[in-house]
């Protein structure tokens, strides 16, 4: 039996974070959490997750900035990052792809979309 894949959830809203954790644990992943971009980079540098779900609008450091910073590091340049956006506005998504996100999914997070994003981006 191989080790559980690690997924980092970056989300400032505590309730939304909890929903994410529920869903990912149900899918059998080890889940790490961070409340903003800065925490995300710290946690990711220590734990090297297999994939990051990154909220975009967050205090302290937003998701775009965090993804850009991640792409500058040796360990983070190829790490799959999926932007999670609460916006119907597409400008946010375009900016996310430009910042280096691999994909994006809308909020409220859809169980099926989470699963297919992971299947696409994480090698089993």
């Amino acid at each position, binding site marked *: 039996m191989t080790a559980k894949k690690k997924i980092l959830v970056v989300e400032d*809203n505590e*309730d*939304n974070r909890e*929903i994410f954790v*529920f*869903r990912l644990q*149900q899918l059998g992943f080890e889940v790490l959490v961070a409340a903003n971009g800065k925490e995300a980079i710290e946690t990711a540098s220590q734990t090297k997750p297999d994939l990051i779900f990154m909220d975009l*609008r967050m205090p302290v450091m937003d998701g775009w900035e965090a993804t850009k910073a991640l792409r500058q590091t040796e360990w983070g340049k190829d790490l799959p990052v999926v932007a999670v956006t*609460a*916006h*119907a*506005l*597409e*400008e*946010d*998504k*375009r900016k996310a*792809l*430009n910042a280096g996100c691999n994909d994006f999914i809308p*909020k*409220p*997070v*859809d*169980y*099926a*979309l989470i699963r297919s994003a992971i299947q696409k981006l994480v090698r089993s």
Partner: protein
Amino acid sequence: MAYQLLNQNPTLFVVTMIEKANILIVDDEMGPRESLKMILKPYFNVYTAERGGQAIEILGQARIDLVTLDLKMPGLPGTKVLEKIKERDPDIEAIIITGYGSMDTAIEGLRLGAFDYISKPFDVNHILALVRRALERRNARVKLKQIKTEFLANVSHELRTPLSVVIGFVSILLDQLIGKLTAEQQKALEKVYKNSGELLELVDNVLCLTSLSSGDLPLFEREFDVGLMVKEAAERYQKSLAEKGIAFSIQAPAGGIRVVSDLPKVSRIFQNLLHNAIKFTAKGQVSVKMHRSVNRGVVDLEIVDTGIGIHRDKIEGMFQPFQQMDGSMQREFSGMGLGLTVARRLTDFLGGTLEIRSLPDIGTHVLLSIPYRVAAQKDGASDPRYQSRAS
């Protein structure tokens, strides 16, 4: 350091903070063109064009804030040039330069959205004052647009965040991850789930319509599979389809249909159409067919239902976009107006067509045709249409 500089020398601060405006002088005569250039050069970045065609070319390359335009030119007429400028970006200001007191063309220019006109030979201080006032108007408009966009983004975020928490937890409850549900509890939660989903859709549609009306909706093109989009959109309606006992089918070519278009917008259009098809079908079936028409450069999406249908005379009325957010909108909300209005407006935005054929009590046939590009570029960021808006 920068702060000290500001206190000691406020003028220097202003000069370094505000970017020089870009002005394009369009005049076929060398004399007025060069003298205007001399006047403006110390304060602005100046571009010049001798012909209308050349002016349009420069507009595509540089971010022009203001154009001075001689309306009497060989080749493309000045009024046509002005039309093209305003088409490209209505916030580009234009000052008409007229010779021989030709008032009628100057007035035509004003009608087309020019800021003002000035007659040759012009006074230096007069033209500088005009240019500065026009630029002030442009800056105020651009600023307002930014504020509007930012406001919409915040409203969207604030409305969707609590809603997504509601939907997220209800779906966790419904999937019985926290505990077993009785049949009654399950039924009640399904109603919460369905209604919060509808509220979310409504919020998205209102926001979408608002950004369409304010005219600052960007085009966002990327490659995607139409079949996959349809499948993902349909998944959201599995529950209501099952509840109603309606048969649902998707017919797609085996290899999928990969296109370059604006996925979020196409998906919203399709979702609104599918939503209506399901909402107004009590029994029978809803089916979706798709195919690519290479000749017409479009993807056709057909949505056929066996629902209540609608009388022919009423079809056009369903599309009537409301001109303003007044009381009449309320009727649209509760009825079927909003989703269809958004679908039609977004389809227009993408340059597509939307046709509805319907017979009362027999059903409705919707044909959506969306133009697509062939996948040549990697993503929407390199689309020139996009760049001209984003800059």
